[in-house]
């Protein structure tokens, strides 16, 4: 890690020192390292490596931009209970700019953002929450009189790396859903060519933000990404393949109605439209809110919120398959199929009758 020494002096204190100051014990620190190592899907032998890195590395400077969003990812970051990963994240990061939680306001706040861009060029981490509207010159989202698409270009373009947190920042999310009136896109599309880690989800899982940052601090590089820019440790496995209800799927035990016997017994939500079979994320293992629960555990099917275009393509949320266009809202694939088979049958019957009417046997013999 020869290159890392240069980055070590981003801010005053090391991460471990910062945690100690906040009253975390050595034990808390090590259990945090263990949790993050597990989230990163690394073997437990890496715990000491992670701990060592966090003891040595200085807090990285981070700016958090919010555009077209609901602040749900910020909520996810702040809402955690105690002793929290969320708190630890705030402690291991030196957050210089975050509209929702910073004390500074107005021009003073905007200046601190520009100071980071100027003074820490190429050395800070940018986090983006929310989509970037590209339509009509970007007028649909302006902060401090500046269009999001300009800010994102400057801030992400000069960052060491950008984390696009939440589905909106990663793929455009809800603002980009059809008909997408503002021309909303994700960060990768808004600023092509800059290094971006996509952490989709609605909201993002804070553990995955932390793990990405810790990976960076430990190994000096971004974690391996898939073709959609998502870290493999968090998005490499399908929900359906890690789901605690999977045994009921294989057995053939399905919830058929909300509140029925199967639902009370925790059976598989496949027939209720669960999109776990089409969604890649580590929800079943990492869960939300300090590992408390996640949608399927709570009894609701996955809606595929971490997949591109989920609002348009995963709908209807309570049916397994999309509605084929042009057959009316109520028609399902099976009705279309049954219709097709009926039309075929009818055509054949018509053909048979046609045969009889058009003279059948006699003419046939004449022809021969």
């Amino acid at each position, binding site marked *: 890690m020869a290159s890392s020494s240069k980055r070590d002096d981003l801010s005053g204190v090391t991460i471990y020192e910062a945690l100690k100051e906040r009253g975390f014990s050595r034990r808390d620190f090590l259990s945090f390292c263990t949790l993050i190592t597990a989230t990163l899907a690394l073997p437990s032998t890496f715990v000491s490596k992670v701990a060592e890195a966090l003891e040595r590395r200085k807090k990285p400077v981070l700016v958090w931009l919010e555009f077209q969003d609901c602040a749900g990812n910020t909520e996810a970051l702040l809402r955690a209970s105690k002793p929290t990963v969320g708190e630890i994240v705030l402690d291991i990061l030196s957050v210089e700019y975050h509209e929702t939680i910073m004390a500074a306001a107005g021009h003073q706040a905007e200046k601190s953002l520009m100071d980071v861009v100027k003074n820490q060029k190429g050395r800070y981490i940018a986090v983006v929450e929310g989509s970037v509207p590209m339509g009509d010159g970007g007028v649909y989202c302006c902060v401090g009189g500046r269009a999001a698409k300009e800010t994102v270009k400057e801030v992400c373009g000069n960052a060491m790396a950008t984390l696009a947190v939440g589905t909106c920042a990663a793929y455009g999310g809800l603002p980009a859903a059809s008909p997408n009136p503002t021309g909303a896109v994700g960060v990768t599309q808004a600023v092509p060519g800059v290094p971006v880690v996509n952490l989709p989800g609605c909201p993002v899982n804070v553990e995955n933000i932390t793990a990405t940052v810790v990976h960076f601090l430990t190994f000096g590089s971004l974690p391996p990404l898939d073709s959609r820019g998502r870290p493999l440790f968090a998005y490499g496995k399908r929900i359906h393949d890690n789901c605690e209800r999977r045994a009921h799927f294989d*057995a053939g035990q*399905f919830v058929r109605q909300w509140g029925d016997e199967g639902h009370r017994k925790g059976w598989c939500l496949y027939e209720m439209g669960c999109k776990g079979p089409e969604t890649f994320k580590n929800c079943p293992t990492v869960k939300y809110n300090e590992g408390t629960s996640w949608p399927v555990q709570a009894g609701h099917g996955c809606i595929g919120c971490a997949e591109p275009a989920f609002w348009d393509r995963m709908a209807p949320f309570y049916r*397994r398959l999309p509605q084929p266009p042009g057959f009316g809202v109520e028609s399902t694939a099976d009705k*279309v199929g049954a219709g*097709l088979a009926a039309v*075929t049958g009818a055509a054949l019957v018509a053909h048979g009758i046609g045969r009889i009417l058009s003279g059948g046997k006699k003419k*046939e013999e004449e022809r021969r």
Partner: protein
Amino acid sequence: MSKERIRVYAWEFPIRLTHWINVLCILALSVTGFYIGNPFMHAVSSKQYIMGWMRFIHFVSAYTFMLSMVVRIYWAFVGNRYASWRVWFPFTSRRFRDLMDAVKFYLFISKKPPYAVGHTALAGFTYLLVFGVFIFMIVSGFALYSLNRDGALWTLLGGWLTGVMHLQTIRLFHHLGMYLILAFTIIHVYIGWYLDLKERNGLMGSIFSGYKFVTGKEWE
């Protein structure tokens, strides 16, 4: 039926073999696929493994079906003239005319049944479309299969499709493809039976034995 009939060996062994393997596979794939889409049986105990077996049978049949298609397509290049890929394309003027004649026959515009020792032009063209559907089913099926199967083989067989189409669209089309195949099967069996009855040329028997019966005139 007075004219003398000649016995012609139309369907070689690989054609008949792949035909019947396809029948069995499509049957198994449709029944299990329908279950995967609409689990109509519910387990009473979690020790059962209904969906598990359905998927297992679906995937074993899927591999068999794919290999059978590979053999069939290979035979389209090395087999006899009735098996050739050429009969799928109505792009010569003669084949196109035959195709229009057949269409007219089935719409009762003309009275002359289409006839060919192998496939008629219309049948050949239909098989081109049907093979297209089969190949789509294989590619989309392996695309779904690749979701929990990492490896170059599955990426090649279908995984690449996930980069082109949304997963839900793949699933929907894979599901609807089943009904297209069902519709084709009904028409296919009906026409086979109907022409056999009219022509008494052993059309239905030919896919078992390989032999068809033609009159001297038709035997060019």
